[in-house]
């Protein structure tokens, strides 16, 4: 974990700026809605709304770090969500089998995109554009343009369910202990290699702040209905993907391929395989997002996931992922997704017209990247 210290150092200020931006956005909407925005009910809603974009952003950030882009994820999400709905409504497939099939299909379609990009050398932008049209077309074809409903309750639980209060508390405790253990291990490692150590009290304060945040998080959600299932899923992905990007060979290679593909290839890394699997993972994330989306709507819609790719890409860039590849973080992308979801949610509460919502979101994206590019250039 120490080897990403430098990267964290550079991105720390960026993340702080983002957190401050979120605080501003939340304060503004709370003031305008007279506190309606920060009620447990709305925050729970906000997090559930964020989950689909967040799941996509987890995969998208890997794609962008590897120096590519995937524009087909919105359509692929819609297609896979539609397939899940059809399997559920017309064949009554058991949930586990349905999940497995949809995830496998997502993996295969993602690998197909990756194969075209990495091995057939079609630029990923074009593969994405083609997929965006083709996947949406297939979805329209298999649904006949109709909404597929009603899906069964066990599927709906994936998108609308809540953890029981006790489970939420248990989750918070487990996460707190994990934070404690990781911080302690990190200190021990740094001490062993005689690396500069932060004072013990500062690490202690950090752990306590994280603990307090977890407590507030779970208590707020529990005072409504509990921790929503898709939010739990998102937390799991955050942990898994952070682990992959910072602790594994595969993760290191994603950064390396995106930063200098030629040098990486000359170092004996199979760069094509790295890109192939990054797209494969993106496909699986589309499947998960599609399932959650279908579950949230309790139906498969032919327009599901429309423009989803733009939200996911915007989330990554707002979260500080470099446009030319080679750097970026999972938590950054998720904070970016939270920014997008907060804007959506707050403006909807204020009854701002859709057109204004689009203008504001577009402007925020450009503002965030403008700040990013200019702070980078000044260094």
């Amino acid at each position, binding site marked *: 974990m120490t080897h990403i210290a*430098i990267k964290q150092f550079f991105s720390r200020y960026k993340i702080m700026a983002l957190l401050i931006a979120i605080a501003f956005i939340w304060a503004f909407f709370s003031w305008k809605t007279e506190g309606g925005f920060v009620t447990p009910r709305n925050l729970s809603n906000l997090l559930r709304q964020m989950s689909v974009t967040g799941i996509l952003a987890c995969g998208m950030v890997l794609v962008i770090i590897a120096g590519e882009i995937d524009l087909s994820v919105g359509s692929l999400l819609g297609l896979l969500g539609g397939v899940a709905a059809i399997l559920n409504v017309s064949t009554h497939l058991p949930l586990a089998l349905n999940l497995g099939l949809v995830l496998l299909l997502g993996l295969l379609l993602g690998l197909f995109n990756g194969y075209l990009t990495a091995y057939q050398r079609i630029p990923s932008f074009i593969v994405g554009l083609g997929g965006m049209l083709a996947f949406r077309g297939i979805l329209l074809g298999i649904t006949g343009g109709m909404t597929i409903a009603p899906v069964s309750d066990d599927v709906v639980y994936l998108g609308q369910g809540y953890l029981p209060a006790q489970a939420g508390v248990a989750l918070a405790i487990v996460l707190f202990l994990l934070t404690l253990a990781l911080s302690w291990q990190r200190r021990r*490692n740094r001490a062993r290699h005689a690396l500069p150590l932060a004072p013990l009290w500062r690490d202690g304060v950090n752990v306590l702040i994280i603990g307090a945040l977890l407590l507030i998080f779970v208590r707020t959600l529990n005072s409504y209905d509990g921790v929503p299932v898709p939010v739990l899923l998102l937390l799991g992905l955050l942990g898994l993907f952070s682990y992959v990007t910072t602790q594994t*060979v595969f993760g*290191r290679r994603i950064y390396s391929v995106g*930063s200098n593909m030629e040098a990486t290839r000359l170092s004996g890394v199979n760069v094509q395989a790295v890109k192939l699997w990054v797209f494969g993972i993106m496909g699986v994330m589309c499947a998960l997002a599609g399932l959650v989306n279908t579950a949230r709507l309790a139906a498969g819609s032919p327009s599901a996931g429309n423009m989803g790719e733009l939200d996911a890409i915007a989330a990554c860039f707002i979260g500080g992922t*470099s446009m030319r590849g080679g750097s970026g973080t999972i938590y950054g992308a998720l904070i970016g997704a939270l920014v997008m979801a907060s804007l959506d949610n707050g403006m909807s509460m204020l009854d701002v017209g859709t057109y204004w919502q689009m203008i504001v979101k577009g402007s925020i994206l450009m503002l965030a990247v403008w700040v990013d590019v200019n702070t980078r250039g000044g260094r």
Partner: protein
Amino acid sequence: MSEYLLEMKGIAKQFGGVRALDGIDIKIKPGECIGLCGENGAGKSTLMKILSGVYPHGSWEGEILWDGQPLRAHSVRDSEAAGIVIIHQELMLVPQLSVAENIFMGHELTLPGGRMNYPAMYQRAEELLRELQMPDINVALPVMQYGGGHQQLVEIAKALNKKARLLILDEPSSSLSSSEIAVLLNIIRGLKAKGVACVYISHKLEEVEAVCDTIAVIRDGKHIATTPMEKMTVEEIIAQMVGRAITTMYPPRDHAIGEVIFEARHITCYDVDHPQRKRVDDVSFVLRRGEIVGIAGLVGAGRTELVSTLFGAYPGRYSGTVWLDGKQVDTSSPRKSIRLGLCMVPEDRKQHGIVPDLAVGQNITLAVLHSFSRHGRIDAERELNTITGQIARMQLKTASPFLPITSLSGGNQQKAVLAKMLLAQPKVLILDEPTRGVDVGAKAEIYKLIAALAAQGVSIIMVSSELAEVLGVSDRVLVIGEGKLRGDFVNHDLSQETVLAAAINQAEQHRSTAP
């Protein structure tokens, strides 16, 4: 008015603490062609960049008189306005645009409203090409439809259109066939007759001999001599170009050389853009255990293409076989080569060596990352131990292995790239220009490391443009010229003259018989 068109007096230029040029004096009369000779890195390009305004007046010492008046060019535009035009080694044409559009680029003839005045430009372009005895070029066709020779002439037409009175040609023939070169030399003679002066820079001394009136030689940034061509021979030019004493930078060569371990047979590779043209032509050689083989040759002779083919990194078409430990091996990708123990440190550190977003340590372990992992998870502790070990071994100067690699100096970046490949435990290590852009101290350390590796039984192939370095480090020297193996010398009192002559293909070839 002065007898001379151009007088450069006492030109000196510093880069940091390095004196790249030290008191150069050159005079050129109208209609004179002067050949500027010197080894790679002698300072020819720097001098021409000063003359053509790339380095503005004030960033160098000395004086330039143009038509007897001081010339103070602050940019390329200023010197072009005076009539000094440089034609670079790499062609500066836009392939998709037409011949006429290229000739008039930046000086387009226009009609009211900013429209291009094509009839006038076509007419003028045809006139220019007729002057160059190339009336068969259709000026409305894209430049890319014509071969390298014609493109070179389009560059010259572009220069003439700027009313050039002094034309600087930097290696104009490096991409030309011999018949195209003959045309080019004729055109230069024609220009001379019209009073246009030329500075001709070429490693091909037979061209210099054929077209130049005067020869100016520079070596290590110093002006050696300016002599009329009729009083010189090609051998005398070579003798003036080299003759630098080999210093004690190089470690003694006392390592044992073992049996043949590596063999390249009939390596041929073809140009990426012109699949018919051979860049390397049927080169075969052997390498013994613990032997250091230097590959010398001029820039563009095909050395990099040869070694990157051996390593499996050449992007174009190629043929030939590679043998390791007596068995034919598959080295069709860097991954396969590294697994076999054949490693390469590439020439272009920035493009092919470092991964800029990763830290120093992460760069060092890039090639062998999987060896620190259990089930895909990196054992950070073992990785860090290896990194600190390599940093100590290479005397790599970095405050921390977690710093970005881009924060290091060129020499230390090079050491990191070397460290990366050494971790892969090569049997055969290819080093392509291992000391390019590296300061003198780091150079000596790299030479010491090369010798130490050879003593451990690693066989080394070192490509270098610095002859002194090749002779100082190698046990054996291969000379590549125009893609062919021109010489294979055992390095016993081998002289730079012999190697350079083989590279330029002037003197008879001294093929070694032993060992």
